[in-house]
């Protein structure tokens, strides 16, 4: 296979199918994401959004179809999953920080032990990331003592410490208090402005409208329609999209 170049799609899904037992959650999903693009996936609960985003870094193996990240086939059993995951950062709804490590240690662990980078260099980078997510002074705090929004920002910094090419956000504000949602969105907005390629599963329609290059509306395992935020949010063509937007807006 020819080496991937930035003018080709960074992420490409072709007819992706996934079943859990009898229930088929993904019924032929295809889309492409170019470098520097921000893609939002919206849709009702249980429409397979989380499964979809997890399949991109091989947390969920798919049954058929193809997913490539920077030209590398994710679904190939021979693929080096670890190499793939070094390029793809992921942030979860439940933060999933390591509770036995401080905020700073959470950020430093993977670069030191996975990338085998020099500790002092990693520490300098981790401290810079803490400042970037506006958590100065919380370096030595354990996750249990941080608010949800603060934990989520540490989780974002933890992913960024690996210097990924692509960031996946899986409903990262869904478990947060309304007042802390904003601080997390501010962090993600900054990332997007810096040109980070992002795929977000989100329920924040206003935020999706603001930062997304394209919005994909999924329902029952298929992409119902996609387009620019204006096309999807203001002038939806499909009845299912209209019904969903009426409920959430």
């Amino acid at each position, binding site marked *: 296979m020819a080496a991937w170049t930035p003018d080709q799609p960074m992420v490409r899904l072709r007819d992706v199918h996934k079943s859990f037992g009898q229930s088929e959650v993904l019924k032929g999903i295809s889309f492409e994401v170019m470098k520097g693009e921000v893609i939002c996936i919206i849709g009702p609960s249980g429409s397979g959004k989380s499964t979809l985003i997890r399949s991109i870094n091989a947390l969920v193996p798919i049954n058929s179809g193809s997913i490539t990240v920077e030209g590398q086939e994710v679904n190939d059993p021979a693929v080096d999953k670890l190499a793939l995951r070094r390029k793809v*950062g992921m942030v979860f709804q439940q933060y999933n920080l390591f*509770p036995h490590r401080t905020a700073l240690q959470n950020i430093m*662990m993977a670069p030191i*032990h996975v990338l085998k980078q020099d500790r002092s260099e990693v520490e300098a980078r981790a401290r810079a990331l803490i400042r970037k997510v506006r958590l100065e002074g919380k370096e030595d705090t354990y996750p249990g003592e941080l608010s949800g929004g603060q934990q989520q920002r540490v989780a974002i910094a933890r992913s960024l410490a690996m210097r990924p090419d692509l960031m996946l956000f899986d409903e990262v504000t869904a478990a947060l208090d309304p007042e802390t949602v904003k601080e997390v969105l501010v962090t993600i907005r900054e990332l997007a402005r810096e040109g980070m390629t992002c795929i977000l599963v989100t329920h924040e329609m206003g935020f999706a409208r603001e930062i997304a290059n394209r919005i994909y509306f999924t329902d029952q395992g298929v992409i119902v329609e996609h387009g620019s935020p204006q096309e999807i949010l203001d002038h939806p063509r499909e009845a299912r999209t209209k019904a969903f937007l009426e409920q959430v807006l």
Partner: protein
Amino acid sequence: MRKERAAPVTDLPVLLPVRSPCVPVLSLRAWHGLVLAAAVLMFAPAAGAQAGSEELSIIGVIIKWMPLLLTGFGFNLLISVLAMALGTIVGLGLGLLQLSEFRWLSRCAWALTQFFRNAPWLVLLFFAMYLIPYEFRIGEVTIPFPDWVKAVIGFALPVMANVAEIVRGAVQSISSGQWEAADSLAFTRRQTLWMIILPQCVKRMLPPWMNLYSLVTMATVLASVVGINEMLTLTAQVHNAEGGRTDLLAPLYAFALLCFFIYCYPINLWTVRLERRFNVKS
């Protein structure tokens, strides 16, 4: 970890969280000890009065033999500590093997665990006593296996199985989100286990592990059945040496009981305290 939402203020009926019924925490107080001591003292002279003049009083007998009996008790503790140490090391490995990605390996470990967990301890002890040779020969070197070492191995077998189960349970109780987060950061499975999962398990494993230790300590008296010179064996010998006086029977065994109680009760208290503390925190 948790959502910090203020309770909504409403005059509508609300569904309150289910609260577990309040169970009173029972524990021994100092005055319990005084009552116990008083009971023994009241009983001792009465029993002593029945005995002939040249015979020692019950208290006298116990004091006379106390160094020997306590040596026996020390031997019980030695066996329990060594069995626990050996069983914990092997059990940790067995528990981790149960979580192995290689299916046949985890199946074998599981079968081994279930076998030793569901066997009576005394049977395992017999098993160890009669199946392990009294010495091993490796080339020119001969390693002797005295009875007490075999007993340690005999007790280590059920400890191993129970520790394996504690380890497996603790690892599986860690939320899958931790594995996912570690996976997404490209940690290998081994790194995830040793650096992320197991450190979180230690707290959860400590109370059941201490509980197991106190059970092992109490079980070491089973070694008297196979003739190890531990406390219960020595108590029987002391009773014989004193002419098998029937009035000595209860006090002598009560002394053994007391030794074990004084040793094990604080362990249990501490376990309960740890359990309560960890429950509050996580």
